């Protein structure tokens, strides 16, 4: 005999089932957490590793500290090191043997510079130095450079196309070229150290270098939760969840700057004008690779509200949030679907899909 259960009996079973689910969640094993911060690469780096054997975690952490120190010492654009040697020789125009430690930076940035229509241009180290942003700290910057000095550099502006390769040699074709990979080196370093953690078998980790990060895996049985700081106020104004392997990078006008004569000058120089880009407050990019996210954040910040979408398409970026000077938030639909605002912006402009 078939009997249909009453509605109340079905409800009782449903409620019991849900309560059991919550109860089982409480029985999950607590995850081990490793969390350390260290000053390296000219910034504060935060390393989080979840759910691994403590001895393995310590070993992996020590290894990536060595990685960071090596990369900082090798890639710093204004020290006597491999990068310094490359910069000196590029200016001469004479061929020299390819520096293996610098080659990946050059090759990847040549590709990204082309895709960004030159807005990401690490070859303008001379312009960066003119503004004083080549220093690790800005204590000695007195003010903006003379316009005629800026125009002189713009008249023969170097680009990544001014580095050529022939067999096992490389040479420069512009005497003004000076490579300053700035934040891009940070992205490359984050990628390298994440890959090194994976080689140790680490599955769930975040490397956060001065606020720009890449996360792999997840936090126990939930996704990583990343807060995004408000570019103009204290605290977090938005957040996003990451699970798998993804980077979150932001370029902003508040990161490195100096004040002179009542005006603020920040470090993201527009290679087209020779002056700090002035179309945005910040750009946040999400992408698998940290180095690409880093370059894209710079390029789209310079591109501003009118051109960011075009450059993002060209660079293969799928998640963008740009905050314009007037506070308007510009996003593509995919980013809008992932961002959760803790403080709702006055105006959000949704672009076409990327």
């Amino acid at each position, binding site marked *: 005999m078939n009997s249909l259960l009453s*509605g109340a009996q079905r409800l009782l079973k449903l409620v019991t089932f849900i309560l059991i689910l919550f109860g089982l969640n409480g029985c999950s094993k*607590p995850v081990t957490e490793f969390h350390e911060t260290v000053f390296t690469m*000219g910034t504060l780096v935060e390393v989080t590793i979840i759910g691994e054997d403590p001895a393995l975690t310590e070993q992996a952490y020590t290894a990536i500290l060595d990685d960071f120190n090596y990369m900082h010492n090798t890639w710093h654009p204004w020290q006597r090191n491999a990068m310094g040697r490359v910069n000196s020789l590029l200016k001469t125009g004479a061929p020299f043997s390819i520096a293996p430690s610098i080659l990946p930076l050059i090759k990847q940035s040549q590709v990204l510079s082309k895709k960004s229509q030159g807005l990401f241009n690490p070859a303008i180290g001379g312009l960066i130095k003119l503004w004083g942003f080549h220093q690790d700290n800005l204590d000695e910057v007195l003010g903006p450079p003379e316009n005629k000095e800026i125009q002189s550099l713009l008249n023969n502006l170097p680009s990544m196309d001014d580095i050529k390769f022939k067999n096992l040699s490389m040479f420069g074709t512009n005497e003004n070229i000076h490579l300053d990979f700035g934040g891009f080196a940070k992205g490359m370093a984050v990628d390298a150290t994440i890959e090194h953690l994976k080689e140790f078998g680490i599955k769930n980790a975040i490397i956060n270098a001065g606020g720009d990060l890449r996360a792999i895996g997840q936090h126990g049985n939930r996704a990583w939760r990343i*807060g995004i700081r408000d570019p103009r106020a*204290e605290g977090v104004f938005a*957040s996003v969840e990451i699970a798998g392997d993804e980077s979150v990078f932001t370029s*902003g006008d508040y990161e490195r700057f100096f004040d002179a004569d009542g005006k603020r000058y920040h470090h993201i120089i527009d290679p087209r004008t020779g002056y700090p880009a002035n179309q945005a407050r910040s750009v946040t990019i999400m992408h698998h690779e940290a180095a690409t996210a880093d370059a894209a954040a710079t390029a789209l910040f310079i591109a501003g509200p009118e051109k960011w979408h075009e450059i993002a398409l060209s660079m293969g970026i799928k998640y963008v949030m740009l905050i314009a000077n007037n506070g308007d938030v510009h996003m593509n639909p995919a980013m809008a679907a992932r961002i959760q605002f803790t403080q709702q912006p006055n105006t959000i402009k949704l672009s076409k899909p990327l």
Partner: protein
Amino acid sequence: MTNLISKKNLSADFKLADKVIFVFSLLLVVTSYFYFWQTTPASYAIIKSPQQDTLQVNLDHKKIYDIQGTLGTSSIEVTHGKIRFTNSPCQNKFCIQHGWQQHHGELTACLPNRVSIQLASADKTASYDAINF
């Protein structure tokens, strides 16, 4: 033989069950919002400097800490759940401009002086694993 339930009785039970499920679901949504999306206030901060031992300070009191860094002394104020730099020997004072920090996961530092402040919460369900800026 199949028991036939009158259309009237089935309708009455279904309505009651619907109401209960609706209320329960609403409670679930509201609880989930507070569980997952509200920012978690920090309960303590870890202050680091290479020149001295790491300090873990409770944010639920009022005090000014003078921390020795590589350039000199950074002053850090703690008051009622918040913490901030109030003075530092660097020239640009970015650390002071960051203002009050009060949420789990927030991180601020005086880079030239090598003094950092990391906020954390004893609550293991705290909202952010990292802050992007």
